[in-house]
């Protein structure tokens, strides 16, 4: 329905070298491939299989995901930001779709 709608929380400002906490969540059913439909046929797997966070082109975290990651995948992690710039978050769907969102941050 609204699969692939991302939500992120990144502070708008930080001081140089400050440790900031980032939270991300994306609406996604994460169909595990283990379930069967009403007629007993297996429901094919469709999950987000990879999540990445980059800052000004540099990798912060890169996560390989399996069906055991819960519905609406959530990640929380810290980052240090050396300068002002932009975080780019990307989610890769089994079906080939790529969802992305970005958040600017000003470092003073």
């Amino acid at each position, binding site marked *: *329905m*609204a699969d692939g*709608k991302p*939500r992120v*929380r990144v502070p708008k400002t930080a001081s140089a070298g400050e440790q900031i906490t980032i*939270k991300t*969540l994306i*609406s996604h059913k994460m169909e595990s491939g283990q379930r069967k439909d009403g007629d007993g046929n297996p429901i094919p797997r469709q999950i987000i299989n990879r999540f990445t966070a980059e800052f000004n082109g540099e990798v912060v975290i890169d996560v390989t995901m399996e069906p055991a990651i819960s519905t*609406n995948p*959530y990640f*929380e992690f810290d980052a240090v930001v050396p300068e002002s710039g932009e975080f780019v978050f990307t989610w890769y769907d089994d079906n080939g779709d790529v969802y992305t969102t970005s958040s600017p941050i000003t470092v003073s």
Partner: protein
Amino acid sequence: MKDALRGVLAGVALSALASGATAQEDAKLIVNGEIEMVTTTTAPEHLEGAFREIRSGWTFRTPETQALQMDDFENPAMIAVDRAQVVWDAVDGTEGNSCSSCHGTVDESMAGVRAVYPKWNEDAGEVRTLEMQINDCRENRMGAEPWDYGSTGMIDMTALISIPSRGMPVNVAIDGPAQSTWEKGKEIYYTRFGQLELACANCHEDNYDNLIRADHLSMGMTNGFPVYRLRNTRLNSTHQRFRGCIRDTRAETFAVGSPEFVALELYVASRGNGLSVEAPSVRN
């Protein structure tokens, strides 16, 4: 029967002594570290004789459940808000309109709306809930099919519309043209229903903070509706909750969306005038 009931309620009251430890009355509700909520405040004037102070249902919950509402990344209701945001921007119906075609962004156009509903609609000559207003838009502005009153799409949309009102005080009007509806709601609130002969007031006014079996009775405030309930893992509307309560009295209940529940919703909302809009909240 009355004596028997008094016995039941006395039993309920006794068990309350053990329940104090689970209530987190002094906890502060700040959502996302920025939206400060008023969860305890002076009761509105019309409750004189009943309550001096009113408390949000949040204050009756365990620390674990309370925490779920303090961060949108923990609050499972926010998935419904995400869903509704997509619908808000999607064209539906014969007129080629989406919600945003007329209203723009939710944040700008809907701030304060949740706090004053149900509300008298002059043109329609009736008190309307958010659900009724949404369907009015769908039918008359969008040329779209109305949603079922208690459908997921409808409840999701009321959750989304509530977002920019979070932290604002509930402030429904009970005088003027809304007064007769309000009086009708009040009458329902104090009327005993069902084989158990229980009125809303018997639990939520006379016995709040007590245990009814394993459930910790709140004051029955609606400032957090729609609520995500851990019990059924979905959003629940005010009318669905009313129906559940009345069903538990072993009564034939009013229908979701019925004039009786609209009146009751206005009355119950007015009992919470002054509490912050918390919707969509998390309860058990």
